[in-house]
């Protein structure tokens, strides 16, 4: 399946289309992204104590780490930053 991923993670701001195997979860996608972008991404999206901190949104919803990806979905990764 194909998914479009937008990374909106401060220093890592990118967009890519990925060809992925069926039934892949969001967590697996994040792992794949870390293998592509390396430690810089890992530091941004993983809290050593709490796990994944990046928020994955798509189709007007927050998608949980254990949810399976759908073909042709468009996902955006955001950081849960505060301060307005």
């Amino acid at each position, binding site marked *: 399946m194909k998914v479009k991923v937008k990374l*909106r993670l401060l220093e890592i701001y990118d967009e890519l289309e990925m060809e992925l195997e069926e039934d892949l979860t969001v967590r697996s996608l994040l792992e794949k992204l870390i293998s592509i972008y390396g430690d810089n991404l890992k530091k941004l999206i993983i809290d050593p104590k709490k796990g994944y901190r990046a928020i994955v949104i798509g189709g007007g919803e927050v998608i949980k780490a254990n949810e399976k990806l759908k073909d042709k979905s468009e996902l955006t990764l*955001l950081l849960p930053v505060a301060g307005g």
Partner: protein
Amino acid sequence: MASGYWNKVLRIDLTNKKVVKEDVEDKIFRLFVGGAGFGAKILWEEVSPEKDPLHADNRLIFATGPLQGHPVPGGAKFSVVSKSPLTNTQADSAAGAKWGPFLKKAGYDALIIQGRSETPVYIYIDDDKVEIKDAKSIWGLDSYQAVDQIRKELGDERVSVATIGPAGEKLVRMACIVVDKHSFAGRCGLGAVMGSKNLKAVAVKGSKKVPVANLSLLKEYNRKYFKEIHNASIKSGLRPHGTPVLCITAEGFGDMPIKYWTGDTWPEGAKKIGAPNYTNVLSAKPYPCLYCPIGCHRNINIEEPTKYRLKGIGPEYETLGMLGTNLLIDDVKAIAVANDICNKLGIDTISTGACIGFAMECYEKGIISKKDTGGMEIKWGDPEILIELVKQIGNKEGFGSIFSEGALRAARKIGKNAEELVAHVKGLDFPAHDPRACWGMIPTYATGTRGACHMRGVEEDVEMSGFYIPEIGITKEKAQFFKREGKAFLAVKMQDYCALVNSLVLCVFMPDGGDLSFTSILNIFNSITGWEWDVQEAMKCGERIFTMQRLINLRDGYSKKDDILPPKMHVPAKKGFRAGKVPPVEELINEYYRLREWDENGHPSKRKLQELDLDL
């Protein structure tokens, strides 16, 4: 005398130049804590509903809380409280720098100003010495020049100065109070109240040690929490990037204002004006208030182009939103220059951006034309128009002078249904957060005791950023996007929490971005006061303060008819994260009313008032 307080208020009547030091009973602080709460209590008792906020009888209250005067992280704040000339509501607006701790160390919990001087003056407080000084040579200076001039005159570079700029002198209804050239009591036009009293500035320094119940425990907490908050703020990005860290995330969630609340998405714009681009392009560095482990304010340096050359304070997220994406402007240097002009003239960047956005929308729709604007083409995305209009609004001149009365009054003057376009509640322009994205903000904006305000509930950070407070039931479950369930509860609890925080007076970024828990806040509070409050007692106090503010507004003519959101907030987005989501505005407000025990007119029940010891 209670620990954490002097039980002393300084009252200055500018009409007859009378200075009085008044005692305050312990029970007042136990009921209203300080800051916003103490100010509300004074407004309730001393400012009658028929008085115009710019009348000499209005009070201008500078109030500290129990945290000031100690090196508590985020404790260098104070509240300014008055009846607002912009909204006619009660209004509290907080600022930082070092003014609050200095007033406290001078031996006062609060300063109450009343009356009107015949000629311009400023107040100088140095412990027990209090002087009303001639300000003729300072009147007319911009807010940065005024700070420098007062320090020079007093021969003391360390003195902290809260001043107005030319906008406050000219009674611009969105004039702010500028503190030490880098912190601002921005909202609700309290600078105009200061101007109406012919009061240019209040300079203060103090040397006294504030009484504390358990000093060794307080020192231990301060050390521990300072380190924890500092580390958390590095991780959250608030330390390295300041509030501009929020831009990309806020735009992604559909929270950032775009085209004066008529646009849905603009990722390219948010990227250009937000962090990390902001940090790189503006060479931005942290500029902390006293005792702050975060340093969210930014010092910036622009060399090129020469027309935008600037060394000084950089814009915050709110300013980037309101002077940037709100106007379809993505030139961060131009925004920084406009921000600098706002700061020096002394106008609130949020309401200024709202007025310009409103003007651009009116121009696009043909409601106003070149004939009205003095020949200017007020088109979206034009940074030079932004800079020109900021000058006109702050100086109350040209076409911009129509906005010196605020966007809502300007719209009423323009007519042609322009009022329908204004994004406001009770006359206070929306800040740079869209309640259609984070539904907890819907009841908070609608019922806000100073109008539409993100700092009186911070639900945007609960929903977008995971700012949870488990001690009061604010958990992930209550923060699900686009779920009605739990959002009214969220608004009630967060309003009460914020009312408490604004009365302590604690910078909200310590918990929100710095991860300081509610329990830790109470540890600090109890070590200072010795009162041993638990979460329940503290929240009851927050609810009491919020309700006191509500009672002032009800007495002064507001009711349920004013607890509404403007037409734009009922229109769902066509694209982006909130596409097609219709905010359940009325349902949420009705549920909120039930939770608050308010009747059909918006009045709290007698039972609730008795419970809160507000059976007035």
